[in-house]
């Protein structure tokens, strides 16, 4: 019963994503909004790899998102590489950073781990801000743009064509999400869930906790940096504010809002949050109160998120 429902959800989401540019525009959205939802959805799902499936809270993922973005942007600006190699370079940079930082903080847990991730997030914000010569500092990294993708036999114009870029982003999203799904269904993924459920018991069962958590952290940062690379390409721009703790907090709320315990939850959460923020900030200058209220309401009344609730409703 559950498996059929899960498959149904998978298919529904795939269809909605595939045809997003069409139905989005019909209801008063615009293609760029859809692309942004896909990018943020990927970021939130990557965070959830660590948060929902390993049970470890990181409140500093914006740092790796930003590192991926800067890596991609700098690769294009200084070396004029294509879009895909640029994303790969960004991912490499961010993953190396995640490996180092992860090793530093692996001994902490719970609230303290979260605090430290916040602080390290700020470190990268500063570096992006101050290293003017390389990162462009406060003005951001400008003067570059994504190049058309040359497949050898054909060229995909993702520069002018918003829709083409949406599908490019969706392709990257699909690859990453598929990889995450494979990892989560593997024995490695199972032990992560075991760690989430009861760390002590997992330790007694012989699971190497520190290594697993570290690896989960690194994997999570790897995919979030891919989202960051896409984000840089989306805007043809990157600036230090993308590394601030605000974004980290937003990613967490997206995961929780959509449902931490489910695979697609963060994507739903991202869709709701991004669309809501876009809509509300157009309507009123007091959108911050509305967003803050969303945080408060979700935590108080919907902690299991949208998909969590739907699942409970179905079961009962």
């Amino acid at each position: 019963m559950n498996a059929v429902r899960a498959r149904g959800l998978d298919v529904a989401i795939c269809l909605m994503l595939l045809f997003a540019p069409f139905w989005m525009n019909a209801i008063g959205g615009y293609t760029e909004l859809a692309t942004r939802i896909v990018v943020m959805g990927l970021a939130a799902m990557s965070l959830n790899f660590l948060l929902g499936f390993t049970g470890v809270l990181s409140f500093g993922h914006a740092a790796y998102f930003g590192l991926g973005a800067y890596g991609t942007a700098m690769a294009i600006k200084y070396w004029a590489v294509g879009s895909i190699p640029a994303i790969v370079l960004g991912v490499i940079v961010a993953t190396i950073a995640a490996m180092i930082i992860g090793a530093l903080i692996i001994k902490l847990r719970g609230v303290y781990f979260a605090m430290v991730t916040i602080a390290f997030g700020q470190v990268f914000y500063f570096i992006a801000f101050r290293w003017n010569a390389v990162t462009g500092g406060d003005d951001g990294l400008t003067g570059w743009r994504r190049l058309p993708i040359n497949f050898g036999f054909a060229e995909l114009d993702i520069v002018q064509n918003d829709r083409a870029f949406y599908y490019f982003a969706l392709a990257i999203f699909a690859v990453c999400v598929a990889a995450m799904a494979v990892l989560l269904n593997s024995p490695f993924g199972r032990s992560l869930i075991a760690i989430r459920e009861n760390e002590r018991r997992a330790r007694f069962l012989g699971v190497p906790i520190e290594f697993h958590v570290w690896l989960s952290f690194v994997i999570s940062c790897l995919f979030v940096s891919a989202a960051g690379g896409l984000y840089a390409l989306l805007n043809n721009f990157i600036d230090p504010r993308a590394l601030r703790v605000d974004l980290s907090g937003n990613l967490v709320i997206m995961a929780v809002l959509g449902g931490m315990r489910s695979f697609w939850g963060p994507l739903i959460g991202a869709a709701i949050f991004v669309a809501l923020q876009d809509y509300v900030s157009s309507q009123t200058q007091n959108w911050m109160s509305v967003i803050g209220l969303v945080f408060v309401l979700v935590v108080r009344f919907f902690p299991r998120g949208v998909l969590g609730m739907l699942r409970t409703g179905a079961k009962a």
Partner: protein
Amino acid sequence: MANADARGISRRRVVKSGLAVAGARIAGPFVMSARAAEAVRIGLDNPLTGPVASLGKNELIGCQMAIDEINARGGVLGRPVELIVEDSTSGDAGTAVMKARKLIDRDKIDFLLGNDNSALALAMAQVSNEKGILHIVPGGHTDAITGSSCNWNVFRVCNTTQMEANAVAAALIEQYGKKSYYITPDYAFGHTLEAAMTKAIAALDGERVGGDLTPLGTVDFSSYLIKAQAANPDVIVFLVPGDDMLNAMKQAVQFGLQNKVHLAGAHQEMEPLEGLPPEARIGVWVMEWYWNQPGVPHVAEFVEATKKRTGRVPTARTWFGYVSVWTCALAAAKANSLKALDMAKALQDFHLPPEIALGPNPAFYCAGQNQLLASLFVGEAQAKGSAPDDFFKVTKVVNGAKVAGTLEESGCKMKWPT
């Protein structure tokens, strides 16, 4: 299990109906824009929240005043003009870019205005250039906008740091002395401002005895002030803007530094001045526009109109917004078309009429650079003036055209589409 059942269903219903309402609301604006298809649309993508919210809000007021005036006079090319406002937030460029795209793609604006944050202005300029929309930057100061990153479709109202530095340097040297120490904010605006100041002061035989780069958002300037005082300058030049300037001046005055050394700076605005305690309102500064201009026609009317709307006097930011919207209308009128290319060409060396320029010198958009050259107001901050809100005593009005650098200096190489 019955209880859980009932709860579960009602929650689901809430969620579903919520989604339905959300869906209807998203569709809302789409319906609206179909109705108003005739109007000329100006999109404002500026920060209304965050640290520079007060500046963005004042620019918005100026924009709204201009819109009302334009509509009262028959609109643009006979069509009513409307302002669509988006909060770019002070977050990262992604939001500002997304809003710019939304305004251009979905709301079909004819003009784009924004942003006060330099990074966001540059990011938006890339979008407007890509889409070929006329773009006016009311208050983003980084020189690159009409310099190394200039675009044919991007125009800027506020001054470059070069102009501000050149305007105030002479006053500093004459009044205070030749040795200066700089407190510079560590980002592009600060760097270019300091470089321009150093050059301007050097040209007048001044000497830079030292300086410090302070992180943006520095809360406590005491360590920098200690160092500055130890270097024994004639004047400490505060290049930090906004809230940073507020903190720095407040602390400097608390230290009694004004009794040992002169305190001054370059860029100054009404909004942070209002936040200073009266005893800290001192020093020589340059403002980009000031409301108290006796003898200059039309200014008093503008001040009255603003006071009626908000109860406060207009600031430079109000004027920036006002000029930005009027520039759009005047460009369309001169080119007799809404095509960005035609309007951009019409704006080359375009002079603003006196009731918009609101200053003693002519105000025009310098050809090849798209930078507005108007008047700069050098003067002294004062605790109290002849009227409430008169916090600044203007000692000299500088002609912007005379202190702007050359085209080569700006680094602008404008590429026009063929």
